[in-house]
């Protein structure tokens, strides 16, 4: 069923775009079906899951690499499914009202959103590290596409890429961490790893840190949080769904998923608690000064995510329960708030606190829902937010918990209280900013939203209330999830009322201080402005990207010279550096010995060899030194005769014969080409470059010759050709070379003929056929598609690729002030 739900998401993603023509924006109703189905199914299975019998399913994909789509829905997964699919379904319905029917790319949007929904469902239900990564990165990519939905805005493109690079980049760390973890754990099933963590491996901390980096970035933990506020350029339903309710919870989920097994492994807890707390405080502080409601919520989300990371990563029962409560709470209230802002924005055209007034009066239902959600965020009873926060404070009460040291717990508790105060303050600020009547602001004209548009926020905020009033449902999930964790003094349950105790006192403190902070909002704002602005985290990203591009440019412009001779020189140098150095080293070490002085050493086997060698040497050097084409050609001919002589000498008349034939043909062709070219080569001046070239080439040539000498000297086995003589008798041939060519190695000969024929066709098409097209051109029979090189050559850089669409027009003058050439101009 789960797999069916996933497949259904994918299928709908394909189906939706064509449906847009028929349904318009109502296509989102259709889109809500798969998540709705998923959440209904999950809820129907809830009793069984909560009772400790998770649902499993599996699809093999790449078993040899342990990549397999294993699914396992336990309590934590159940909570996440409810969030992901439940909120998803609601937001899809909301989108029907939010998007206009003529919105650009609405089909694509719906499709990608459903894909995201499916991917997120996969993230939270899979039990295989690789499968988790698969779905994880699918959410990154879909998020990228959704942030960049309004791709004509520079800001949107930039934010999308930034989010993608950050999350996928850190995701790579996570992937390596996964591979390490699975490698040392001997399995890639998460449940097995958590149940039996490979704690004795020295690599475990490394793996965990890598994984946490990925999780932190996904959940926008400081200092990697910068991408999330920037991502708010996306349409509000997307912000609400991905960047508040679900995707950003991925990191939290992963931390919570692994905490039961790994929370006690250093440096897990230290890392999670520090980063989480810092994020909570930074986010809360920044939220206090935002004017854009959406940004206010975004920073609030950052803060809340820090809070959740702290809770999920601590690895105690109480913290775990608190995490479940807060997770659900945040999902519901934050999506509500975003949707509320969406409605306000949609109707009034602004999200600026400074421009809004009277909204509460004009849209009371919406305001009610928003206020309720904000209350939950602020941690007021009887909402689920309150339940969660109570549990969170309880989790760090000194002495109550076994895991963090008492001192650390004290610090954490203080931090959480401060964070909660900030949260209360910005929650209040939100309600005031969105709904209050402000005298200084003039009221705007706008229409009331349709009921369908408001339904989703109302329902979602109601869910928060419902869960708060009846926390048993959440508690059941929490207990089921927390069961394997170390127990404190006494079992803890999510509930509205735990009696008078330190936590209630702290809550009171939070409310009081928060209210004070809200009341003093002017002062706070001024204080924030007055404080020296600390470096924005985003700056780090920009520096990173700039460094990459700068490095890329400086490396590439130095290496990629564009000069063929340099390329070939480097190739020769590489040959010297690899086998060359190896050979020299072996010679120096005495592992190899040149045949000097051995019995094998001979100047020549026949004085004739000396004659031939001298011819070869003199002719070759002459060719190389000659800078006039024609004399060089003659020397080359002499060289050919020299080689032929060597062939004769070495008992290879057939070779000599063929060579002379080929040489003659080459000379004929050369002459034909040569007669068109200038009589001398452009010779580079003598200088260190030339000297270096000579040195390099001599070294390369010497290397090969010496290697040949050594190889032939070291031959151990007799050549296989002994067999040919006997076999040749069978075939009836007397010339062994011929027999080999036409019989033993006929395939080579065949290949040789193919090469020759192909070269002939190539030459013909290069020389003859194009000549014809030149004639055509002269006759004025010019069609842009068929004409050959000549017209195009003339127009290089501006040549129109086809059908009258000139590159010039496309590129425009301003884009190419220098008239730079297109390397591949001319299309096909």
């Amino acid at each position, binding site marked *: 069923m789960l797999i069916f739900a996933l497949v259904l998401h994918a299928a709908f993603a394909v189906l939706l775009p064509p449906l847009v023509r028929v349904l318009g924006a109502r296509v989102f109703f259709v889109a809500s079906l798969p998540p709705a189905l998923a959440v209904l199914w999950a809820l129907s299975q809830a009793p069984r899951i909560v009772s400790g019998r998770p649902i499993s399913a599996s699809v093999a994909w790449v078993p040899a690499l342990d990549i397999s789509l294993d699914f396992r829905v336990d309590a934590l997964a159940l909570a996440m499914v409810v969030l992901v699919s439940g909120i998803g379904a609601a937001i899809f319905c909301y989108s029907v009202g939010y998007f206009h029917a003529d919105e650009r790319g609405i089909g694509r949007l719906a499709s990608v959103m459903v894909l995201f929904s499916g991917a997120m469902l996969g993230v939270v239900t899979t039990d295989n590290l690789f499968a988790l990564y698969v779905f994880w990165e699918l959410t990154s990519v879909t998020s990228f596409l959704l942030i960049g939905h309004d791709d004509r805005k520079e800001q949107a493109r930039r934010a999308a890429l930034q989010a993608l690079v950050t999350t996928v980049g850190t995701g790579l760390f996570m992937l390596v961490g996964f591979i390490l973890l699975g490698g040392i754990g001997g399995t890639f099933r998460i449940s097995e790893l958590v149940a039996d963590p490979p704690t004795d491996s020295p690599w475990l901390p490394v793996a965990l840190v890598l994984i946490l980096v990925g999780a932190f970035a996904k959940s926008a933990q400081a200092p990697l949080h910068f991408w999330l506020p920037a991502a708010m350029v996306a349409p509000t339903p997307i912000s609400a769904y991905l960047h508040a309710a679900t995707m950003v919870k991925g990191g939290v989920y992963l931390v919570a998923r692994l905490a039961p097994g790994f929370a006690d492994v250093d440096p897990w807890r230290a890392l999670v608690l520090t980063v989480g707390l810092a994020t909570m405080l930074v986010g809360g502080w920044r939220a206090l000064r935002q004017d854009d409601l959406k940004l206010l919520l975004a920073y609030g989300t950052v803060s809340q995510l820090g809070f959740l990371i702290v809770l999920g990563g601590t690895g105690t029962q109480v913290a775990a329960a608190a995490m479940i409560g807060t997770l659900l709470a945040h999902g519901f209230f934050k999506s509500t708030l975003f949707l509320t802002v969406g409605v306000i924005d949609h109707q009034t055209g602004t999200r600026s606190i400074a421009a809004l007034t009277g909204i509460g009066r004009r849209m009371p239902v919406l305001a009610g829902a928003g206020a309720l959600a904000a209350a939950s965020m602020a941690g007021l009873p009887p909402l689920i937010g309150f339940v969660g926060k109570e549990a969170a404070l309880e989790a760090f009460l000194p002495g109550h918990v076994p895991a963090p040291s008492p001192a650390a717990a004290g610090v954490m508790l203080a931090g959480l209280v401060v964070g909660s105060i900030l949260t209360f303050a910005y929650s209040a600020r939100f309600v005031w900013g969105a709904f209050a009547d402000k005298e200084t602001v003039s009221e705007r004209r706008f229409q009331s939203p349709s009921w369908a548009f408001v339904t989703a926020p109302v329902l979602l905020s109601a869910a928060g209330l419902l869960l708060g009033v009846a926390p048993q449902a959440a508690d059941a999930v929490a207990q089921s999830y927390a069961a394997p964790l170390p127990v404190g003094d006494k079992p803890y349950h999510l509930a509205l009322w735990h009696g008078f105790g330190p936590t209630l006192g702290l809550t009171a403190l939070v409310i009081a201080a928060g209210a004070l902070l809200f009341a003093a909002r002017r002062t706070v704002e001024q204080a924030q402005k007055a404080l020296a602005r600390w470096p924005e985290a985003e700056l780090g990203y920009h520096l990173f990207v700039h460094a990459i591009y700068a490095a890329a440019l400086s490396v590439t412009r130095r290496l990629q010279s564009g000069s063929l001779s340099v390329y070939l020189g480097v190739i020769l140098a590489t040959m010297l550096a690899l086998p060359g150095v190896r050979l020299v080293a072996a010679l120096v070490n005495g592992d190899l010995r040149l045949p000097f002085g051995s019995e094998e050493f001979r100047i020549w086997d026949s004085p004739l060899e000396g004659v031939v060698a001298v011819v070869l040497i003199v002719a070759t050097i002459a060719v190389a030194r000659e800078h*006039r084409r024609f*004399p060089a050609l003659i020397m080359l*001919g002499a060289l050919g005769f*020299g080689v032929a002589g060597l062939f004769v000498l070495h008992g290879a008349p057939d070779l000599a014969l063929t060579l002379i034939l080929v040489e*003659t043909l080459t*000379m004929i062709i050369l002459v034909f080409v040569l*007669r068109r070219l200038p009589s001398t080569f452009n010779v580079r001046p003598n200088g260190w470059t030339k000297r270096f070239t000579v040195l390099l080439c001599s070294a390369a040539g010497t290397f090969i010759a010496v290697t040949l000498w050594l190889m032939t000297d070291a031959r151990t086995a007799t050549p296989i050709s002994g067999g040919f003589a006997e076999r040749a008798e069978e075939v009836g041939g007397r010339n062994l070379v011929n027999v080999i060519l036409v019989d033993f190695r006929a395939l080579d000969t065949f290949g040789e003929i193919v090469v020759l024929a192909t070269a002939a066709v190539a030459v013909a098409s290069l020389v003859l056929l194009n000549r014809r097209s030149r004639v055509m051109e002269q006759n004025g029979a010019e069609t842009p598609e068929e004409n050959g090189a000549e017209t195009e050559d003339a127009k290089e850089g501006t040549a129109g690729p086809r059908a009258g669409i000139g590159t010039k027009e496309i590129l425009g003058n301003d884009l190419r002030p220098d008239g730079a050439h297109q390397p591949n101009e001319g299309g096909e």
Partner: protein
Amino acid sequence: MTILDYAYTATFVMLTLGVAFTLFRLVRGPSVLDRIICLNVISVLLVSFVAIEVALRGDVTYLGLMVTIALLGFVGPLIASRFAERRAHDRG
């Protein structure tokens, strides 16, 4: 060593000297025409060398080769000289 062997050696030595002188002219030039002549001479020398080989071995294997060298050994220089002629023409 028989007289014949001495004859071969003498022939060989003289031809080798010939090769040396030809190479000298080939490299020195000065004109391309000199080089073309040298190219032809080299091919003729090659024929001569092969002829010694044939005589030494009393073997008919190389005869075909000799004909080829004689034929093609002059085609190359001929083409080159035709080309030189054309060049001269173009310039003049």
